[in-house]
């Protein structure tokens, strides 16, 4: 269970949100909503351990954000694709997954196939469209063994089939006992999702 207690976040001289407390249990899908600049991205970055909160605590069971067990438990998908333009899809995916947990080559190729990038293994990422790049990163998401998914605008740049695919993955992940916290400006049709409004 992920426990967030009394969280405050400040950006520059402005207070984004304060005294935010909530809990996420296994199987929960949490849709974080709010206007632009309300702190959705900052909240996800704090949960990922990238930003430091002004106040408050975050615990996964007994693990704090800085512990290795916590870091192993999360997968964070930010605005940026986390791919280097000069390298091929396969090389990029291999590096991305190794940062979490090493995965064998056939599984990598299989994951690329699943996200609709068959035959793109050796294509340099600079030549991919924004949607295709997103799909490479999503392949990393499928392969990760992380329990908590933190997805910041996962649907941007994807076509309707792509959006449906991601929604399916999220549902599947949470049915298997995972947790997912995500933001989006598109209306999402996920079943059983809870909403956290900032």
């Amino acid at each position, binding site marked *: 269970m992920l426990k967030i207690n009394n969280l405050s976040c*400040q*950006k*520059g*001289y*402005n*207070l984004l949100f304060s005294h935010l407390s909530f809990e996420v249990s296994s199987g929960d899908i949490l849709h974080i909503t709010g206007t632009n600049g309300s702190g959705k991205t900052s909240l996800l970055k704090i949960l990922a351990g990238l930003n430091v909160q002004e106040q408050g605590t975050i615990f996964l069971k007994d693990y704090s954000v800085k512990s290795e067990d916590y870091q192993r438990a999360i997968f964070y998908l930010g605005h940026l694709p986390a791919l280097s333009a000069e390298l091929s899809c396969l090389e990029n995916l291999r590096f991305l997954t190794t940062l979490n947990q090493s995965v064998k080559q056939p599984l990598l190729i299989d994951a690329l196939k699943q996200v609709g990038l068959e035959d793109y293994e050796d294509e340099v990422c600079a030549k991919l469209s924004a949607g295709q790049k997103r799909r490479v990163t999503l392949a990393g998401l499928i392969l990760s063994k992380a329990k908590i998914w933190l997805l910041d605008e996962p649907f941007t740049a994807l076509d309707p089939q792509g959006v449906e695919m991601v929604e399916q993955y999220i549902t599947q992940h949470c049915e298997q006992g995972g947790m997912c916290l995500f933001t989006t400006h598109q209306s999402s049709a996920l079943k059983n999702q809870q909403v956290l409004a900032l």
Partner: protein
Amino acid sequence: MWKWIQAFASPQNFYQSSEKIIPWLMVPFILLSLAGLYWGLVVSPADYQQGDSVRIMFVHVPAAWMSLFVYVVMAVAGGIGLIWQIKLAFVVAKVSAPIGAAFTFLALITGSIWGKPMWGTWWAWDARLTSELILLFLYLAYMSLNNAFDNPKTANKASAILAIVGLVNIPIIYYSVEWWNSLHQGSSVSVSKVSMQIDMFIALMLISFAFKFLYGALVLMRSRDEVLVREQNSRWVRMLITGSEK
């Protein structure tokens, strides 16, 4: 003790109490510098070798001491800010930089003025002057890094790291410059080599304490301004400016 520090270090408390401290620093500064000037210009004798031009030492040497002292304060304050998350420490570090740079600049200028009668040139690659010059570069680097960030929190922490890295480097830089100087120059008259007499020593001490008080007063004054900018969105600052709750 710890609670007391935290209470004083809260921006609002600092803003209110620092106002009362400033006169207690300004008055000793004025008295000490008047006494120091009297001792340095009237009481203390001219040097047998350097004549009256030795008197510039009474500004040069304290300024050079201060240039190092302020850098140490800046780095230590930055470190305190990083470790204990005390906002006020970052403020002190930031406002100290231009003051330290000014002392460094003063040391360089006075060294150069001293050099004209002694060496016949405005500048010589003397060990102390060269080190001062590099120290000035370190201050300028710190200030431009601090100004380069949009996010004040990042600016605080990043420049604190630079100051600490600089502090670790300063002894190495001073030593290497000293060593480099000894390779290339024989024993010429150096800024630091003055046969010291008791009257000169007293004048030197008076001015150097005066500078310490001046630094303290300037840091407090500049910190008050900086605190207002940083806390611009808090209620107490708005009340202070508008005089009401809104």
